[in-house]
Protein backbone atom coordinates (compact mmCIF):
# COMPACT_ATOMS: atom_id res chain seq x y z
CA UNK A 1 0.00 0.00 0.00
CA UNK A 2 1.80 3.10 -1.17
CA UNK A 3 -1.22 5.26 -1.95
CA UNK A 4 -1.00 8.51 -0.01
CA UNK A 5 -4.23 9.32 1.75
CA UNK A 6 -4.71 12.65 3.49
CA UNK A 7 -5.12 11.68 7.15
CA UNK A 8 -8.22 12.63 9.09
CA UNK A 9 -6.44 14.27 12.01
CA UNK A 10 -9.34 13.77 14.38
CA UNK A 11 -9.00 10.01 14.01
CA UNK A 12 -5.34 9.38 13.26
CA UNK A 13 -3.58 10.43 16.46
CA UNK A 14 -5.25 7.97 18.85
CA UNK A 15 -2.97 5.06 18.02
CA UNK A 16 -2.10 2.46 20.57
CA UNK A 17 1.46 2.05 21.62
CA UNK A 18 2.59 -1.59 21.61
CA UNK A 19 1.96 -3.50 24.87
CA UNK A 20 5.00 -3.28 27.09
CA UNK A 21 4.64 -6.56 28.98
CA UNK A 22 6.20 -7.35 32.32
CA UNK A 23 8.56 -4.43 32.74
CA UNK A 24 9.14 -2.14 35.70
CA UNK A 25 9.09 1.64 35.40
CA UNK A 26 9.20 4.72 37.59
CA UNK A 27 7.51 8.05 37.98
CA UNK A 28 9.25 10.60 35.76
CA UNK A 29 10.50 13.59 37.72
CA UNK A 30 12.02 16.57 35.84
CA UNK A 31 14.93 16.62 38.30
CA UNK A 32 16.02 13.26 36.84
CA UNK A 33 15.83 14.29 33.18
CA UNK A 34 19.57 14.74 32.58
CA UNK A 35 20.47 11.54 34.45
CA UNK A 36 17.94 9.56 32.38
CA UNK A 37 18.88 11.05 29.02
CA UNK A 38 22.60 10.78 29.84
CA UNK A 39 22.43 7.06 30.62
CA UNK A 40 22.36 4.23 28.14
CA UNK A 41 18.80 3.48 27.12
CA UNK A 42 17.33 0.98 29.52
CA UNK A 43 14.45 -1.39 29.75
CA UNK A 44 11.48 0.17 31.50
CA UNK A 45 8.90 2.90 31.17
CA UNK A 46 8.03 6.25 32.72
CA UNK A 47 4.78 7.46 34.15
CA UNK A 48 3.70 11.10 34.37
CA UNK A 49 0.74 12.86 35.91
CA UNK A 50 -1.28 14.08 32.95
CA UNK A 51 -2.10 17.43 34.58
CA UNK A 52 1.58 18.41 34.70
CA UNK A 53 1.68 18.42 30.90
CA UNK A 54 -1.51 20.30 30.10
CA UNK A 55 0.21 23.65 29.58
CA UNK A 56 0.38 24.96 26.00
CA UNK A 57 4.15 24.61 25.58
CA UNK A 58 7.48 25.24 27.26
CA UNK A 59 10.06 23.09 29.05
CA UNK A 60 7.63 20.42 30.41
CA UNK A 61 6.73 19.30 26.88
CA UNK A 62 10.39 19.42 25.77
CA UNK A 63 11.28 17.13 28.69
CA UNK A 64 8.44 14.71 28.01
CA UNK A 65 9.28 14.56 24.31
CA UNK A 66 12.86 13.71 25.26
CA UNK A 67 11.69 10.91 27.54
CA UNK A 68 9.09 9.60 25.11
CA UNK A 69 11.58 9.40 22.25
CA UNK A 70 13.32 6.40 23.82
CA UNK A 71 10.83 4.99 26.32
CA UNK A 72 7.24 3.81 26.59
CA UNK A 73 5.05 6.20 28.53
CA UNK A 74 2.24 5.75 31.03
CA UNK A 75 -0.18 8.67 31.27
CA UNK A 76 -1.69 8.83 34.75
CA UNK A 77 -4.60 11.22 35.25
CA UNK A 78 -5.08 12.58 38.74
CA UNK A 79 -7.84 15.17 38.47
CA UNK A 80 -10.65 13.80 36.28
CA UNK A 81 -12.93 13.43 39.33
CA UNK A 82 -14.43 10.24 37.91
CA UNK A 83 -15.96 9.36 41.28
CA UNK A 84 -17.62 12.75 41.78
CA UNK A 85 -21.36 13.30 41.32
CA UNK A 86 -21.10 16.22 38.95
CA UNK A 87 -20.59 15.88 35.19
CA UNK A 88 -17.00 15.49 33.98
CA UNK A 89 -15.21 18.73 33.08
CA UNK A 90 -15.42 18.65 29.27
CA UNK A 91 -12.45 20.96 28.82
CA UNK A 92 -10.35 18.76 31.07
CA UNK A 93 -11.40 15.64 29.20
CA UNK A 94 -10.43 17.32 25.91
CA UNK A 95 -6.99 18.18 27.32
CA UNK A 96 -6.57 14.57 28.47
CA UNK A 97 -7.48 13.28 25.02
CA UNK A 98 -5.00 15.68 23.41
CA UNK A 99 -2.20 14.28 25.57
CA UNK A 100 -3.13 10.70 24.64
CA UNK A 101 -3.05 11.73 20.97
CA UNK A 102 0.23 13.62 21.27
CA UNK A 103 2.29 11.16 23.28
CA UNK A 104 0.66 7.81 22.38
CA UNK A 105 1.15 6.32 25.83
CA UNK A 106 1.36 2.56 26.32
CA UNK A 107 -0.80 2.87 29.45
CA UNK A 108 -3.56 5.34 30.36
CA UNK A 109 -5.02 5.42 33.86
CA UNK A 110 -7.18 7.42 36.27
CA UNK A 111 -8.47 7.07 39.83
CA UNK A 112 -11.58 5.80 41.54
CA UNK A 113 -11.88 9.09 43.44
CA UNK A 114 -13.08 12.66 43.11
CA UNK A 115 -11.34 15.99 43.54
CA UNK A 116 -13.76 18.70 42.37
CA UNK A 117 -17.04 19.79 43.99
CA UNK A 118 -19.07 22.62 42.47
CA UNK A 119 -16.32 25.05 41.41
CA UNK A 120 -13.66 24.06 43.94
CA UNK A 121 -10.74 21.81 43.03
CA UNK A 122 -9.34 20.17 46.18
CA UNK A 123 -6.16 18.62 44.75
CA UNK A 124 -6.63 15.35 46.62
CA UNK A 125 -8.06 11.93 45.76
CA UNK A 126 -11.25 11.98 47.83
CA UNK A 127 -13.27 8.85 48.66
CA UNK A 128 -16.79 7.86 47.60
CA UNK A 129 -19.45 5.51 48.97
CA UNK A 130 -19.99 2.25 47.13
CA UNK A 131 -23.69 2.11 46.22
CA UNK A 132 -25.84 1.33 43.19
CA UNK A 133 -26.10 5.07 42.47
CA UNK A 134 -22.36 5.78 42.64
CA UNK A 135 -21.72 2.67 40.54
CA UNK A 136 -23.97 3.99 37.75
CA UNK A 137 -22.32 7.40 38.01
CA UNK A 138 -18.74 6.07 37.88
CA UNK A 139 -19.58 3.80 34.93
CA UNK A 140 -21.14 6.71 33.07
CA UNK A 141 -18.00 8.80 33.60
CA UNK A 142 -15.66 6.01 32.51
CA UNK A 143 -17.76 5.47 29.38
CA UNK A 144 -17.25 9.16 28.56
CA UNK A 145 -13.49 8.98 29.09
CA UNK A 146 -13.16 5.81 27.01
CA UNK A 147 -15.30 7.34 24.25
CA UNK A 148 -12.97 10.33 24.20
CA UNK A 149 -9.68 8.42 24.17
CA UNK A 150 -11.03 5.44 22.19
CA UNK A 151 -9.24 2.88 24.28
CA UNK A 152 -9.75 1.20 27.64
CA UNK A 153 -8.82 3.18 30.71
CA UNK A 154 -7.05 1.56 33.66
CA UNK A 155 -8.93 2.48 36.85
CA UNK A 156 -6.90 2.62 40.07
CA UNK A 157 -8.16 1.37 43.44
CA UNK A 158 -7.92 4.09 46.12
CA UNK A 159 -6.23 4.31 49.50
CA UNK A 160 -8.78 5.52 52.05
CA UNK A 161 -8.92 6.72 55.64
CA UNK A 162 -12.69 6.79 56.25
CA UNK A 163 -15.65 4.61 55.28
CA UNK A 164 -19.13 5.81 54.27
CA UNK A 165 -22.10 4.67 56.35
CA UNK A 166 -24.21 4.42 53.20
CA UNK A 167 -21.88 1.99 51.34
CA UNK A 168 -23.77 -1.14 50.37
CA UNK A 169 -21.05 -3.13 48.60
CA UNK A 170 -17.38 -3.91 49.10
CA UNK A 171 -14.71 -2.01 47.20
CA UNK A 172 -13.69 -5.12 45.28
CA UNK A 173 -17.30 -5.87 44.27
CA UNK A 174 -17.69 -2.25 43.18
CA UNK A 175 -14.49 -2.28 41.13
CA UNK A 176 -15.33 -5.62 39.53
CA UNK A 177 -18.78 -4.30 38.54
CA UNK A 178 -17.24 -1.14 37.05
CA UNK A 179 -14.80 -3.20 34.98
CA UNK A 180 -17.50 -5.59 33.76
CA UNK A 181 -19.94 -2.82 32.81
CA UNK A 182 -17.47 -0.44 31.14
CA UNK A 183 -14.83 -2.84 29.82
CA UNK A 184 -12.15 -0.78 31.53
CA UNK A 185 -8.94 -2.34 32.79
CA UNK A 186 -7.60 -1.95 36.31
CA UNK A 187 -4.54 -0.41 37.84
CA UNK A 188 -3.88 -2.33 41.04
CA UNK A 189 -2.06 -0.17 43.57
CA UNK A 190 -0.77 -2.68 46.08
CA UNK A 191 0.42 -0.01 48.50
CA UNK A 192 -3.13 1.38 48.46
CA UNK A 193 -4.47 -2.08 49.29
CA UNK A 194 -2.03 -2.37 52.20
CA UNK A 195 -2.79 1.15 53.46
CA UNK A 196 -6.57 0.66 53.27
CA UNK A 197 -6.40 -2.82 54.80
CA UNK A 198 -4.48 -1.46 57.79
CA UNK A 199 -6.72 1.58 58.13
CA UNK A 200 -9.98 -0.37 57.93
CA UNK A 201 -8.88 -3.56 59.64
CA UNK A 202 -9.34 -6.01 56.79
CA UNK A 203 -6.95 -8.54 55.29
CA UNK A 204 -4.96 -7.34 52.29
CA UNK A 205 -4.71 -10.95 51.09
CA UNK A 206 -8.51 -11.35 51.22
CA UNK A 207 -8.87 -8.12 49.24
CA UNK A 208 -6.42 -9.36 46.62
CA UNK A 209 -8.21 -12.73 46.48
CA UNK A 210 -11.45 -10.84 45.69
CA UNK A 211 -9.83 -8.45 43.22
CA UNK A 212 -10.40 -9.26 39.51
CA UNK A 213 -6.69 -9.81 38.78
CA UNK A 214 -7.31 -10.86 35.18
CA UNK A 215 -8.31 -7.23 34.42
CA UNK A 216 -5.14 -5.74 35.90
CA UNK A 217 -3.06 -3.96 33.25
CA UNK A 218 -0.66 -2.15 35.57
CA UNK A 219 0.54 -2.31 39.16
CA UNK A 220 1.64 0.56 41.38
CA UNK A 221 4.06 0.22 44.28
CA UNK A 222 4.89 3.11 46.60
CA UNK A 223 5.95 4.06 50.10
CA UNK A 224 3.64 5.09 52.93
CA UNK A 225 3.92 6.95 56.22
CA UNK A 226 2.57 6.18 59.69
CA UNK A 227 0.20 8.24 61.86
CA UNK A 228 -2.41 7.39 64.50
CA UNK A 229 -6.21 7.53 64.42
CA UNK A 230 -8.50 8.90 67.17
CA UNK A 231 -8.13 5.71 69.17
CA UNK A 232 -4.34 5.81 68.95
CA UNK A 233 -4.19 2.91 66.50
CA UNK A 234 -1.94 2.86 63.46
CA UNK A 235 -3.22 4.90 60.50
CA UNK A 236 -1.19 4.60 57.29
CA UNK A 237 -0.86 7.55 54.95
CA UNK A 238 -0.39 7.02 51.22
CA UNK A 239 2.51 9.47 51.07
CA UNK A 240 4.60 8.30 48.06
CA UNK A 241 7.64 9.75 49.79
CA UNK A 242 9.85 6.77 50.48
CA UNK A 243 10.82 3.22 49.53
CA UNK A 244 8.26 0.43 49.12
CA UNK A 245 7.57 -1.35 52.43
CA UNK A 246 8.63 -5.01 52.86
CA UNK A 247 5.02 -6.11 53.41
CA UNK A 248 4.02 -4.48 50.10
CA UNK A 249 6.85 -6.25 48.29
CA UNK A 250 5.57 -9.58 49.67
CA UNK A 251 2.03 -8.86 48.48
CA UNK A 252 3.43 -7.85 45.10
CA UNK A 253 5.26 -11.14 44.70
CA UNK A 254 2.08 -13.05 45.55
CA UNK A 255 0.10 -11.04 42.97
CA UNK A 256 2.71 -11.57 40.25
CA UNK A 257 2.87 -15.32 40.94
CA UNK A 258 -0.90 -15.45 40.61
CA UNK A 259 -1.35 -13.00 37.74
CA UNK A 260 1.90 -13.33 35.78
CA UNK A 261 4.09 -10.36 34.81
CA UNK A 262 2.32 -6.97 34.51
CA UNK A 263 3.85 -3.51 33.91
CA UNK A 264 4.80 -2.27 37.36
CA UNK A 265 5.47 1.27 38.47
CA UNK A 266 7.43 2.60 41.42
CA UNK A 267 5.59 5.79 42.42
CA UNK A 268 7.62 8.40 44.25
CA UNK A 269 6.13 11.90 44.30
CA UNK A 270 7.60 13.71 47.26
CA UNK A 271 11.03 13.84 48.98
CA UNK A 272 12.28 12.72 45.56
CA UNK A 273 15.54 10.73 45.82
CA UNK A 274 18.44 10.79 43.40
CA UNK A 275 17.80 8.84 40.19
CA UNK A 276 19.89 5.76 41.12
CA UNK A 277 17.75 5.21 44.25
CA UNK A 278 14.52 5.27 42.27
CA UNK A 279 16.04 3.14 39.52
CA UNK A 280 17.11 0.56 42.11
CA UNK A 281 13.51 0.26 43.37
CA UNK A 282 12.39 -0.42 39.80
CA UNK A 283 15.19 -2.99 39.42
CA UNK A 284 13.87 -4.79 42.52
CA UNK A 285 10.41 -4.98 40.94
CA UNK A 286 11.94 -6.14 37.65
CA UNK A 287 13.74 -8.97 39.45
CA UNK A 288 10.41 -10.24 40.79
CA UNK A 289 8.77 -9.89 37.37
CA UNK A 290 11.60 -11.83 35.72
CA UNK A 291 11.56 -14.51 38.38
CA UNK A 292 7.82 -15.06 37.93
CA UNK A 293 7.95 -15.15 34.15
CA UNK A 294 5.78 -18.09 33.02
CA UNK A 295 7.61 -21.15 31.66
CA UNK A 296 8.16 -20.99 27.91
CA UNK A 297 8.97 -17.27 27.92
CA UNK A 298 12.44 -17.69 29.35
CA UNK A 299 14.21 -18.30 26.04
CA UNK A 300 16.16 -15.06 26.20
CA UNK A 301 17.72 -16.18 29.45
CA UNK A 302 18.93 -19.47 27.93
CA UNK A 303 20.37 -17.63 24.96
CA UNK A 304 22.40 -15.33 27.19
Amino acid at each position, binding site marked *: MTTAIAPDMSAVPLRYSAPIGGVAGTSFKPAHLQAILGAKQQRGFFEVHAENYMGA*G*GPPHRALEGIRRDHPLSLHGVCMSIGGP*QPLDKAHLARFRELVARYQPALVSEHLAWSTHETSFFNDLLPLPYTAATLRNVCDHIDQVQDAIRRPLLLENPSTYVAFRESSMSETDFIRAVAERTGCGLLLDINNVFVSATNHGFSALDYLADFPLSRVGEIHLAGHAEQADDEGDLLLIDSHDGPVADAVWKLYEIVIQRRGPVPTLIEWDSKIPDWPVLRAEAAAAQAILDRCRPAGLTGDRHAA
Partner: protein
Amino acid sequence: MPPEPDLCFAAAFAPALLDPVRPAPEIVTGPNGKAAGKRYDVYRNNVTVSLIDALAAIYPAVQRITGTDFFRAMARFHVRGTPPISPLLSDYGRDFPAFIAQYEHAQMMPWLADVARIERAWLDAYHAADAAPLSPAQLAAVAPERLDGLVLIPHPAAGIVRSQFAAVTIFAANRDTSPVGRIDAATPEDALVTRAEFDVVVRHLPPGGAAFASSLMSGRPLGEAAARALDAAADFDIASNITGLIEAGAFTSIAFGDV
Protein backbone atom coordinates in the same frame (compact mmCIF):
# COMPACT_ATOMS: atom_id res chain seq x y z
CA MET B 1 -28.78 19.95 37.23
CA PRO B 2 -28.24 18.92 40.87
CA PRO B 3 -27.07 15.35 41.38
CA GLU B 4 -29.67 12.73 42.31
CA PRO B 5 -30.25 12.43 46.08
CA ASP B 6 -28.12 9.28 46.30
CA LEU B 7 -25.10 11.27 45.10
CA CYS B 8 -25.08 13.94 47.81
CA PHE B 9 -21.94 12.55 49.45
CA ALA B 10 -19.64 15.16 47.89
CA ALA B 11 -21.82 18.05 49.11
CA ALA B 12 -21.62 16.59 52.62
CA PHE B 13 -17.91 15.68 52.46
CA ALA B 14 -16.48 18.85 50.89
CA PRO B 15 -17.39 21.84 53.12
CA ALA B 16 -15.19 20.90 56.09
CA LEU B 17 -12.12 20.24 53.93
CA LEU B 18 -11.07 23.90 54.06
CA ASP B 19 -12.83 24.81 57.30
CA PRO B 20 -11.00 23.52 60.38
CA VAL B 21 -13.84 24.63 62.69
CA ARG B 22 -16.38 22.22 61.21
CA PRO B 23 -16.43 18.65 62.56
CA ALA B 24 -15.88 15.67 60.27
CA PRO B 25 -19.01 14.99 58.20
CA GLU B 26 -21.63 12.67 59.71
CA ILE B 27 -21.68 10.47 56.61
CA VAL B 28 -18.20 9.05 57.25
CA THR B 29 -16.88 6.80 59.98
CA GLY B 30 -13.92 4.70 61.02
CA PRO B 31 -14.21 0.88 60.92
CA ASN B 32 -16.28 -0.93 63.60
CA GLY B 33 -17.70 2.28 64.98
CA LYS B 34 -14.34 4.03 65.40
CA ALA B 35 -14.30 7.82 65.16
CA ALA B 36 -13.66 9.60 61.87
CA GLY B 37 -12.03 12.75 63.28
CA LYS B 38 -8.33 12.21 62.72
CA ARG B 39 -9.11 10.09 59.68
CA TYR B 40 -11.01 12.91 58.01
CA ASP B 41 -8.21 15.27 59.08
CA VAL B 42 -5.89 13.39 56.70
CA TYR B 43 -7.96 14.70 53.80
CA ARG B 44 -8.11 18.20 55.30
CA ASN B 45 -4.34 18.15 55.69
CA ASN B 46 -3.73 16.77 52.18
CA VAL B 47 -5.90 19.48 50.62
CA THR B 48 -4.54 22.42 52.59
CA VAL B 49 -0.87 21.43 52.57
CA SER B 50 -0.84 20.49 48.87
CA LEU B 51 -2.41 23.82 47.90
CA ILE B 52 0.00 25.78 50.11
CA ASP B 53 2.82 23.79 48.47
CA ALA B 54 1.41 24.75 45.07
CA LEU B 55 1.58 28.45 45.99
CA ALA B 56 5.11 27.99 47.37
CA ALA B 57 6.15 26.44 44.05
CA ILE B 58 4.71 29.36 42.08
CA TYR B 59 6.04 32.06 44.45
CA PRO B 60 9.52 30.94 45.64
CA ALA B 61 10.97 34.47 45.84
CA VAL B 62 8.03 35.68 47.94
CA GLN B 63 8.59 32.73 50.27
CA ARG B 64 12.32 33.43 50.53
CA ILE B 65 11.61 37.07 51.38
CA THR B 66 8.98 36.38 54.01
CA GLY B 67 10.45 33.19 55.41
CA THR B 68 8.65 29.84 55.29
CA ASP B 69 6.46 30.21 58.39
CA PHE B 70 5.17 33.65 57.38
CA PHE B 71 4.57 32.48 53.83
CA ARG B 72 2.69 29.33 54.80
CA ALA B 73 0.48 31.19 57.26
CA MET B 74 -0.33 33.79 54.59
CA ALA B 75 -0.90 31.11 51.95
CA ARG B 76 -3.15 29.11 54.30
CA PHE B 77 -5.50 32.11 54.59
CA HIS B 78 -5.56 32.45 50.82
CA VAL B 79 -6.09 28.73 50.17
CA ARG B 80 -9.05 28.59 52.58
CA GLY B 81 -10.68 31.69 51.13
CA THR B 82 -9.83 31.12 47.47
CA PRO B 83 -9.41 27.45 46.56
CA PRO B 84 -8.52 26.62 42.94
CA ILE B 85 -11.30 26.53 40.37
CA SER B 86 -9.25 24.55 37.82
CA PRO B 87 -7.57 21.15 38.12
CA LEU B 88 -4.49 22.74 36.54
CA LEU B 89 -2.48 23.99 39.50
CA SER B 90 -0.23 25.98 37.17
CA ASP B 91 -3.28 28.26 36.82
CA TYR B 92 -3.71 28.63 40.57
CA GLY B 93 -2.77 31.68 42.58
CA ARG B 94 -3.69 34.44 40.12
CA ASP B 95 -5.45 36.25 42.98
CA PHE B 96 -2.55 35.75 45.38
CA PRO B 97 -0.67 39.01 44.55
CA ALA B 98 -3.83 41.05 45.26
CA PHE B 99 -4.29 39.06 48.48
CA ILE B 100 -0.70 39.86 49.49
CA ALA B 101 -1.30 43.56 48.75
CA GLN B 102 -4.09 43.72 51.35
CA TYR B 103 -2.67 41.13 53.80
CA GLU B 104 -2.37 42.87 57.14
CA HIS B 105 0.98 41.38 58.13
CA ALA B 106 2.63 42.19 54.77
CA GLN B 107 1.98 45.93 54.87
CA MET B 108 5.60 46.70 55.78
CA MET B 109 6.64 45.09 52.46
CA PRO B 110 4.62 47.18 49.97
CA TRP B 111 6.68 45.78 47.06
CA LEU B 112 5.90 42.14 47.89
CA ALA B 113 2.73 41.96 45.76
CA ASP B 114 4.63 43.21 42.70
CA VAL B 115 7.36 40.58 43.22
CA ALA B 116 4.52 38.03 43.28
CA ARG B 117 3.11 39.48 40.04
CA ILE B 118 6.47 38.95 38.36
CA GLU B 119 6.59 35.36 39.62
CA ARG B 120 3.07 34.72 38.31
CA ALA B 121 4.09 36.18 34.90
CA TRP B 122 7.24 33.99 35.00
CA LEU B 123 5.13 30.83 35.33
CA ASP B 124 2.73 31.95 32.59
CA ALA B 125 5.72 32.45 30.29
CA TYR B 126 7.11 29.03 31.29
CA HIS B 127 3.91 27.23 30.21
CA ALA B 128 3.00 29.48 27.26
CA ALA B 129 2.74 28.11 23.73
CA ASP B 130 6.04 27.74 21.90
CA ALA B 131 6.61 30.15 19.00
CA ALA B 132 9.60 31.32 16.99
CA PRO B 133 10.40 34.94 17.90
CA LEU B 134 10.60 37.71 15.31
CA SER B 135 14.16 38.18 14.05
CA PRO B 136 15.78 41.64 13.96
CA ALA B 137 16.33 41.13 10.20
CA GLN B 138 12.58 41.03 9.61
CA LEU B 139 12.21 44.48 11.12
CA ALA B 140 15.25 45.81 9.25
CA ALA B 141 13.59 44.78 5.97
CA VAL B 142 10.59 47.08 6.55
CA ALA B 143 10.64 50.26 4.41
CA PRO B 144 11.15 53.35 6.64
CA GLU B 145 7.93 55.03 5.47
CA ARG B 146 5.91 52.03 6.68
CA LEU B 147 7.40 51.91 10.20
CA ASP B 148 4.87 54.31 11.69
CA GLY B 149 1.96 51.96 10.92
CA LEU B 150 3.86 48.81 11.84
CA VAL B 151 2.05 46.40 14.18
CA LEU B 152 3.89 43.64 16.03
CA ILE B 153 2.21 40.37 17.06
CA PRO B 154 3.15 39.59 20.68
CA HIS B 155 4.83 36.31 21.58
CA PRO B 156 2.56 34.01 23.66
CA ALA B 157 5.10 34.05 26.49
CA ALA B 158 5.61 37.83 26.64
CA GLY B 159 4.28 39.81 29.59
CA ILE B 160 4.81 43.11 31.38
CA VAL B 161 4.61 43.87 35.10
CA ARG B 162 4.79 47.50 36.22
CA SER B 163 5.87 48.46 39.72
CA GLN B 164 6.36 51.61 41.81
CA PHE B 165 9.06 49.67 43.63
CA ALA B 166 12.32 47.90 42.74
CA ALA B 167 10.35 44.70 42.12
CA VAL B 168 12.64 43.38 39.34
CA THR B 169 15.78 43.70 41.45
CA ILE B 170 14.08 42.19 44.50
CA PHE B 171 12.66 39.33 42.38
CA ALA B 172 16.03 38.59 40.77
CA ALA B 173 17.88 38.66 44.09
CA ASN B 174 15.47 36.16 45.69
CA ARG B 175 14.91 33.54 42.98
CA ASP B 176 17.97 31.59 44.04
CA THR B 177 19.82 30.99 47.28
CA SER B 178 22.73 33.42 46.86
CA PRO B 179 23.06 36.20 49.46
CA VAL B 180 20.95 39.32 48.94
CA GLY B 181 22.68 42.71 49.31
CA ARG B 182 21.02 45.98 50.19
CA ILE B 183 18.34 47.05 47.70
CA ASP B 184 16.74 50.49 47.48
CA ALA B 185 13.13 49.34 47.23
CA ALA B 186 11.82 52.83 46.37
CA THR B 187 13.16 52.89 42.79
CA PRO B 188 10.29 52.13 40.37
CA GLU B 189 11.03 49.20 38.05
CA ASP B 190 8.98 47.67 35.24
CA ALA B 191 9.53 44.08 34.12
CA LEU B 192 9.47 42.48 30.69
CA VAL B 193 9.00 38.71 30.95
CA THR B 194 9.76 36.58 27.88
CA ARG B 195 10.64 33.03 26.86
CA ALA B 196 12.04 33.05 23.33
CA GLU B 197 12.92 29.37 23.50
CA PHE B 198 13.68 27.40 26.69
CA ASP B 199 14.48 29.86 29.45
CA VAL B 200 12.18 32.46 30.93
CA VAL B 201 14.01 35.80 31.19
CA VAL B 202 12.90 38.79 33.28
CA ARG B 203 14.32 42.12 32.12
CA HIS B 204 14.17 45.56 33.69
CA LEU B 205 12.62 48.00 31.19
CA PRO B 206 13.99 51.54 30.91
CA PRO B 207 11.73 54.58 31.64
CA GLY B 208 8.94 54.73 29.05
CA GLY B 209 9.69 51.15 28.03
CA ALA B 210 6.63 49.64 29.69
CA ALA B 211 4.26 52.19 28.09
CA PHE B 212 5.91 51.46 24.74
CA ALA B 213 5.86 47.67 25.05
CA SER B 214 2.31 47.57 26.46
CA SER B 215 1.03 49.64 23.53
CA LEU B 216 2.77 47.39 21.00
CA MET B 217 1.64 44.21 22.70
CA SER B 218 -1.96 45.40 22.74
CA GLY B 219 -1.75 45.82 18.95
CA ARG B 220 -1.19 49.57 18.66
CA PRO B 221 1.01 50.72 15.73
CA LEU B 222 4.65 51.65 16.31
CA GLY B 223 4.11 55.40 15.81
CA GLU B 224 1.41 55.53 18.46
CA ALA B 225 3.39 53.37 20.88
CA ALA B 226 6.39 55.68 20.48
CA ALA B 227 4.24 58.74 21.23
CA ARG B 228 2.96 57.12 24.44
CA ALA B 229 6.52 56.23 25.47
CA LEU B 230 7.68 59.83 24.87
CA ASP B 231 4.78 61.08 26.98
CA ALA B 232 6.04 58.85 29.79
CA ALA B 233 9.76 59.64 29.35
CA ALA B 234 10.92 62.63 27.27
CA ASP B 235 14.35 61.06 26.56
CA PHE B 236 12.87 57.74 25.40
CA ASP B 237 15.06 56.09 22.72
CA ILE B 238 12.78 54.35 20.20
CA ALA B 239 15.52 52.53 18.26
CA SER B 240 17.22 50.91 21.24
CA ASN B 241 13.90 49.97 22.84
CA ILE B 242 12.44 48.29 19.77
CA THR B 243 15.70 46.42 19.25
CA GLY B 244 15.73 45.36 22.89
CA LEU B 245 12.15 44.07 22.75
CA ILE B 246 12.78 42.08 19.58
CA GLU B 247 16.02 40.60 20.90
CA ALA B 248 14.18 39.59 24.07
CA GLY B 249 11.67 37.65 21.96
CA ALA B 250 8.63 39.80 22.77
CA PHE B 251 7.10 39.41 19.30
CA THR B 252 6.56 36.72 16.69
CA SER B 253 5.71 38.58 13.49
CA ILE B 254 4.95 41.85 11.74
CA ALA B 255 1.64 43.15 10.46
CA PHE B 256 0.51 46.56 9.26
CA GLY B 257 -2.41 48.71 10.40
CA ASP B 258 -4.75 47.88 13.27
CA VAL B 259 -5.20 44.17 13.93
